Every structure is written in C-alpha cells, then in structure tokens.
C-alpha cells in the first residue's frame, strides 16, 4: 500500500511482537544449550532460525522497508541448508560424497 504511516496500535503491536519473539529465541537457546542429544540441538537451532525469520518480517513491517522481507527469505533458505547438511553430517560423516 502506498498510504502513509500506520496508526499507533499497529506500531505498538509490531513492537510487542518483536519483544515476544525475541524472548522465544532466548527460550529456544536453553534447549540448544542443554539438549541431551545432537538432534535436540539441531531442532532447537531450527526453531531459532524460524523465529529470526519472523523477527525480520516484523522489522520490515515496523520500518516499512520491504528489503527485510527478502532478507527473511534468504534466512529461511540458509536455515534449511544448515538443517539438511547437519543431518547428513551426523549420519554419514560427510556432507558431500
């Protein structure tokens, strides 16, 4: 939309969402540190990456800069590649044979 600034309650909601999702990242970091096995940590880091994607989209909503949506898409791609490569490395000992 090419209209001007959003009303105040939209900005307030986006800021509150940023705080909530950042706190969820910290909570996921507990599982990434204390997880009993390696797949636990991979799952926790995958959840952190998805939360960071949400943070990037919320920041694009807050500032109105649409470049951050593209950045969120790149972060999602990097998270998927990380997950797949760690899964292959854990099972077979090498990523590309």
């Amino acid at each position, binding site marked *: *939309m090419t209209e001007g600034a959003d009303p105040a309650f939209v900005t307030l*909601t986006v800021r509150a969402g940023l705080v909530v*999702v950042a706190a969820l990242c910290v909570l996921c970091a507990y599982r990434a540190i204390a997880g009993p096995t390696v*797949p636990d940590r991979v*799952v926790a880091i995958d*959840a952190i990456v998805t939360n960071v994607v949400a943070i990037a989209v919320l920041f694009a909503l807050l500032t109105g800069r649409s470049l951050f*949506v593209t950045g969120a898409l790149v972060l999602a791609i990097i998270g*998927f590649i990380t997950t*797949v490569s760690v899964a292959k490395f854990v099972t077979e000992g090498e990523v590309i044979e």
Partner: protein
Amino acid sequence: MTLATLHSVLIVALIVVGCFFLTVGTIGLLRFPNVYNRMHATSKPTTLGTAAIFFAAFVEFGPGNAGLTSLLGIFFLFLTVPTGAHMIARAAQRMGVPFMEGVTWPEPSDDDSEE
C-alpha cells in the same frame, strides 16, 4: 469502519495469531520429553506462526514487490520445514536415540534401500 482501519485490524490480528503459534511451538520444544516429540512441536506450529506473520507482510505491502516475496516465503516454509524435520528424524533414528515405550519404526530394510 473505513478500509484503512480494516487493513490495520487485519495486520494486528495476523501478528497476534503468529505470535501465539510461535509461543506454542517454543513451549512444546521446552516441555516435550523426546527428540521426535519436540520435532513435532517445533515444525508445525512454528511454520504456521511464521506463515501468519509473512501473510501480515503481504497485507501490508500489497500484491506488488514485497508482498509477492512474502507469498514465496510462505510457500518455501511449507516446502522445506517438513523436509528438514524428516531428515533430522532419520538422523536421530540412525544415531540410536531411544524412542518412548510402545513406539515402533518402519522396517530398516526399505529405509536403507533408498540411499
């Protein structure tokens, strides 16, 4: 209620839904007892929550440039997150992470034949 107000209310509702699903996924990640259960908790609600926030960006930016990128992000998330969870589940099973009681895995013969 004007159209701009409806636009803002829709954005707020989508952000609230997204934050709710992300919170549910994180609680499941912290509270569930097993790797496989935690994977179930993170993959589905986290995908739904991030897709809702992407959809809020689509509503905000319109069907032009960044809105189309948001729809592409939703499609990409729904494509890749189950694939990644499946690969981690297979890796955990091959590492020998124990199941809960009464849980079985498909026969290892057809599991090995695909690689």
